[in-house]
């Protein structure tokens, strides 16, 4: 491993267009705390040695909240005012808009995961179990 490898996540934003002309701003990469938060904020109850009980209403939502940092969505005032990103605002979206955001974030997350796996499997990268 390169001893100079940088090991922290610097916050960077990626802008993604929605089909209705609006956009969302999402984190390019989650840090360890944010990644763990997707799961921990989903768990209703967890006991040692038992399967965690999840909160069904938060499935999917915690990942969106972990990634989403901004959007161009506005209210219906004249002139329209920006609506800040919040869990409450997300829950009040039209279902089709929510689904589109969820799919875009899932695709971004899957692409990141694939890139991480590729990096891990790259030649010269030490593995946890070296070949004998």
């Amino acid at each position, binding site marked *: 491993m390169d001893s100079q490898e940088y090991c922290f996540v610097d*916050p960077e934003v990626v802008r993604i267009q929605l089909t209705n002309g609006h956009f969302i701003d999402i984190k390019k990469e989650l840090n360890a705390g944010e990644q763990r938060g997707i799961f921990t904020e989903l768990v209703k109850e967890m006991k040692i040695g038992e399967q965690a009980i999840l909160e069904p209403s938060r499935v999917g939502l915690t990942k969106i909240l972990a990634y989403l940092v901004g959007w161009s969505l506005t209210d219906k005032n004249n002139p329209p005012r920006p609506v800040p990103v919040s869990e409450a605002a997300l829950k009040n979206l039209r279902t089709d808009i929510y689904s589109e955001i969820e799919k875009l974030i899932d695709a971004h997350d899957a692409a990141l995961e694939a890139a991480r796996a590729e990096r891990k499997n790259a030649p010269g990268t030490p593995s946890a179990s070296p070949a004998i």
Partner: protein
Amino acid sequence: MSASAAKWSSHGVDYTTDGKLKMNLTITGVEGQIRWVYHSAAVLRAWTVVSTDATRTLTASVVSQDTYRVAQRPLVFVAPHARGEWRWPVEELQIQDGALTACLGPQKA
């Protein structure tokens, strides 16, 4: 962060030698944040920005801080107001005994 109303007051209105308006401005607010890109680095209360032609100084009480993020750059001071938020880049920052003092750059849009 709710949009608690910030207040401003001017004092010491004066003119420079070439006739330009020279104004010292003090803005106060209840809630504010120091941000590192999209992360909250510190949550502030009871903040004051004293602005002169050349300098802008922020003082505030620190409610909470993330020591890693506060050490990162660039940092921005974000203050909510009734129609949005004000943003100033942080040029220098010190936190001691729960009190923050910072030098701010020119206000961002």
